[in-house]
């Protein structure tokens, strides 16, 4: 009898403890937002790496001088006002009142200059901007001037760059860290404070509301406007398995998923407690990259033959599936944005196999197998390579598709060796659309040989056009130059842009206020 009572008592006590614990947890739940990103975040320096998860972390704790609104316009953020000299070589920025680092010290012009310099040593747009910068001058605590060698058309676009690498402002002592070394402090002036003591990489990262943060008065729009934090605490939960993410959000253990894979969306659509949120209306673009320094793609005719075999929709159907989540467009700089131009003759949209075969013959392709690298660890990319293989074979290429994990591909693409000695000919990737809205931020357009992105194209004419675009301060003329850049890329078949796609986020129905922006930001988000 006694053991029975003991067991019962234990059962009642345990159940009571669970109910009490769960009740307390639920009361706290409305103040805590649990968010899962597209991958684990092990690096906390958004200048040292271009990883998107680290960029998003940057938006939690840092602020920017300028930022992009939901209509892709650049608006002041930490800056109160700015002036440009009549010859457009002196830009003076005045910081707004009340900006403070998380350690209580005021944000000054002295902090902003090394922050811009560190970013300018790593980012593609930053590097370009710094080519034009002659000097920086501190005017007073809140004001500094950037002096240019000659007018540059993308000053605001650079300082308001929305995605990796973002020119985040950091305290001077942190910003002076070697750009090729990781920073070791997480002090910013942004709307959230990183709680180092509670954050455990591989488990979760904890942010609390920065109660001293003074949001701008304008309503939030994209990454600009008032960053009003409505949650007391946000936890980024590290959960690498997409199926586990979906299980956890359905069970109410997390509140938001940045971008679940497309094949799992129907499960969430069917659940009454869930909603899909189109937080990134610009989406992403798939990229088809050639190695320009190794045969056969060192020959522009052969590159062009390969791209003539491309039909974007084949890629989009194979990877994304549902048409509501993709867009066929031959615009390199993203359909629906100011520099978007649909290319003529169905380039990349409608294949021309006969022309491709003729070009291949004319170019004297010798039948050497083309090494196509296929990544199998990023689900959205896995099916791109088989589509390319089929298209290339259709026009007469021999293809050696080699399967590997993404990290191996990332390492191998740095090798300039011949494909049969560890090099490569083609690989695919994708990019956040906001990163490629103009010829300067679009890394794939760079054609400076060794200084170019992997594939290393060299094309002085392309560089002349890109430089002209960079210097152009007249919007209409800049647009014409963007078109010229796109046309040049088509003419030389520099690379292929093989379709835009969208990946909605998933949220519990009681979560509202997820802003439309190229980055998943957590200010304005609240939980009922």
């Amino acid at each position, binding site marked *: 009898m006694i053991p029975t009572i003991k067991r019962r008592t234990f059962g009642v006590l345990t159940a009571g403890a669970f109910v009490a614990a769960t009740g307390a947890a639920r009361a706290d739940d409305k103040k805590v937002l649990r968010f899962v990103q597209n991958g684990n975040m092990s690096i906390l320096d958004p200048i040292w790496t271009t990883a998107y998860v680290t960029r998003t972390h940057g938006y939690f704790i840092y602020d920017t001088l300028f930022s992009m609104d939901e209509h892709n316009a650049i608006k002041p953020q930490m800056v109160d006002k700015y002036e440009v000299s009549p010859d457009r070589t002196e830009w003076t920025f005045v910081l707004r009142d009340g900006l403070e680092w998380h350690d209580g010290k005021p944000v000054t012009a002295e902090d902003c200059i090394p922050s811009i310099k560190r970013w300018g040593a790593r980012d593609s747009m930053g590097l370009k901007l710094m080519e034009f910068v002659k000097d920086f001058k501190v005017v007073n605590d809140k004001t500094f001037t950037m002096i240019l060698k000659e007018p540059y058309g993308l000053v605001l676009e650079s300082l308001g760059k929305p995605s990796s690498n973002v020119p985040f402002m950091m305290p001077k002592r942190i910003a002076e860290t070697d750009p090729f070394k*990781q920073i070791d402090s997480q002090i910013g002036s942004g709307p959230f404070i990183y709680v180092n003591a509670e954050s455990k990489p591989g488990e979760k990262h904890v942010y609390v509301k920065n109660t001293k943060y003074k949001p701008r008065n304008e309503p939030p729009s994209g990454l600009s406007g008032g960053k009003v934090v409505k949650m007391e605490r946000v936890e980024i939960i590290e959960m690498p398995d997409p199926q586990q993410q979906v299980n956890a959000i359905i069970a109410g253990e997390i509140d938001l998923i940045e971008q679940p894979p497309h094949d799992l969306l129907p499960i969430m659509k069917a659940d009454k407690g869930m909603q899909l949120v189109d937080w990134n209306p610009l989406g992403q673009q798939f990229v088809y990259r050639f190695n320009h320094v190794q045969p056969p793609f060192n020959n522009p005719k052969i590159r062009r033959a390969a791209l003539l075999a491309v039909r974007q929709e084949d890629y989009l159907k194979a990877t994304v599936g549902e048409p509501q989540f993709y867009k066929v467009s031959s615009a390199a700089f993203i359909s629906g944005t100011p520099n978007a131009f649909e290319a003529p003759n169905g380039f990349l949209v409608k294949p021309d196999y006969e022309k491709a075969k003729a070009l291949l013959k004319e170019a004297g392709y010798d039948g050497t197998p083309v090494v196509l690298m296929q990544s199998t660890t990023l689900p959205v990319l896995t099916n791109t390579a088989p589509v390319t293989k089929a298209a290339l074979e259709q026009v007469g290429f021999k293809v050696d598709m080699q399967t590997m994990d993404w990290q191996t591909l990332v390492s191998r693409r740095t090798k300039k060796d011949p494909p049969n000695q560890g090099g490569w000919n083609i690989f695919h990737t994708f990019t956040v659309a906001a990163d490629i809205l103009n010829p300067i931020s679009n890394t794939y357009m760079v054609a400076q040989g060794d200084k170019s992105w992997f594939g290393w194209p060299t094309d002085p004419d392309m560089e002349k056009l890109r430089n002209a675009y960079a210097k152009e301060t007249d919007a209409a003329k800049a647009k014409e130059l963007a078109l010229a850049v796109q046309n040049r890329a088509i003419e030389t078949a520099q690379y292929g842009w093989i379709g835009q796609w969208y990946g909605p986020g998933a949220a519990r129905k009681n979560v509202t206020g997820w802003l439309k922006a190229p980055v998943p930001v957590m200010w304005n988000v609240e939980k009922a």
Partner: protein
Amino acid sequence: MIDFIARRLVAIIPVLAVVAVFVFLMLRLTPGDPAAVIAGDNATSEQIDLIRAKLGLDLPIWQQFFIWISDILRGNFGESFFFKKTVTELIAQRLEPTLALSICTLIVAVTTAVPLGVIAAYRHGSLLDRVVMGFSVMGFSLPTFVIGYCLIYIFAIDLGWLPVQGYTRIGADFGGFIEHMILPSITLGIIYVALIARITRASVLEVLNEDYIRTARAKGLSNRVVLMRHALRNAAVPILTVIGIGIALLIGGAVVTETVYGLPGLGRLTVEAVLSRDFPTIQAVILMFSVVYVVINLLIDISYTLFDPRIRY
């Protein structure tokens, strides 16, 4: 005995030396460049070269190896390429979930499998015996992740009794800790239940045919006393051996289970480190697992003496 333990401890040194050389070379020979992973998708070759130099990965392999070994001899396992933390800190942070999972799994496995195996042996040829053996075959055959997802679907999503994922530290909330351990321990435990139950059944069955068991029964001892005091104790050595081997398998199983249940343990750290080519972390974790494996085997060898007085070292 002390001589034996000392000899075995000394024998760990060459084992670790071989493991260290092997792990170091394997990592350097497999494709993958941590600098390229760190730099991210938009970096240029020049930027990657600069990061490689900062990490010391541009040095000849032999030089990298000697720097690493000399650091280890000074007790320094290095700093993770990614986490901006020492590897020792990282391991310490991830030890608790793995330790908790291993202990809970062993408790589940031993407390379920040993009685099942003993009963199956005692009821040899009965329906119960067949059910236990059938379960055992199923336990061997089902992959851990399949069991995990089935249990999550039934107990976490459908019934809502237990959490889908995550971990609560034992010191933070004991109730939450137990809640988060139930499904992972059962998931990982099933294969060990299958393994230990089979061995227990076979060992006990063999012992039950011995003369001294017949003598014990003839003395009028109860079945419980015969089974527990005479049969099980004499069948313990092979059972302990298989539990020891099981602990080694547990390390591999923990990698999958921690991933399925989102437990931030050493298994997941290993997977993350391998995927990102975090050489210092992979090297240290594998060395640590080797030490654990050797030490556990030593403890199992020592424990034989407790059950079988004929064994002396």
